[in-house]
């Protein structure tokens, strides 16, 4: 079924259309969030949140934008706000070590291990470009930053990744 038709049906509150959209995007969104937050439970929770927000805010989606870009914008915003929250928790952890119950498990292997060492500001555009296959223009739309910034962040991310891999 055509994606635009699915969106139109979703705007009319069709639950089956919502299920179909989830079937198409759930794995991409989950993997994208997982690479940012590095915590499977949190990533699963945030993926659910992405689709819930999409369901209730579908009327704000404009047809001239790509649906996947819109969905990834929600995912990116939620992930970044999760990272911000975590920063506060980490800050508190420095003063009150007992507060932090669950540290972020990073059971990743190979390139993912190194990818997770890169700063989120660089990691997110790199994942969107190389893993999710978005164009520079689309990434700029998702992250609401200029295309030049996207390019430079991807370049720096690759440089960092290369250095980390060389160091082993």
């Amino acid at each position, binding site marked *: 079924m055509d994606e635009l038709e699915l969106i139109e049906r979703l705007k009319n509150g069709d639950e089956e259309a919502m299920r179909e959209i989830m079937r198409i995007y759930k794995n991409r969104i989950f993997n994208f969030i997982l690479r940012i937050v590095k915590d499977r439970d949190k990533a699963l929770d945030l993926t659910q949140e992405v689709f*819930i927000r999409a369901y209730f805010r579908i009327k704000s989606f404009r047809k001239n934008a790509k649906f996947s870009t819109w969905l990834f914008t929600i995912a990116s915003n939620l992930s970044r706000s999760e990272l911000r929250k975590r920063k506060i928790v980490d800050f508190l952890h420095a003063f009150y070590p007992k507060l932090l119950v669950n540290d972020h498990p990073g059971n990743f292997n190979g390139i993912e291990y190194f990818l997770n060492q890169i700063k989120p500001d660089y990691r997110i555009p790199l*994942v969107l470009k190389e*893993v999710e296959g978005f164009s520079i223009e689309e990434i700029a739309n998702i992250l609401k930053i200029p295309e030049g910034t996207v390019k430079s962040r991807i370049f720096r991310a690759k440089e960092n990744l290369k250095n980390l891999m060389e160091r082993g």
Partner: protein
Amino acid sequence: MEKDLKNITYFELPESFENDVMDRIKRIKKRRKRAKMIFIPSILIAVLSFTALFLMNSPLKKERTEGKPIAFMEPLSQEYHADIYLEVIPVKSFEKENLYLIEFVNEKEERINAF
């Protein structure tokens, strides 16, 4: 490196994911509906209670219960007839008892209620 990134581990979510999300959506819808149902009557009650409070403390209500206030800025007049004054005392509310005839008998003041 780009090739490695393309072949990165791709996790798949279970089939139950859609059901979980739809359940959460239904719960949120139900909660919002309930909140809306409570919100409208509570707004109405608040408006009515504010109106009642305003009416109870309004000057209109005061006038009805205490009578219309009459305030004279200064004693209006003192009429002199021989040794008898008619004094009008400035009062907030008019009472019969506030009107006196004042008679002077040998420079001694004597108040006589006018009514």
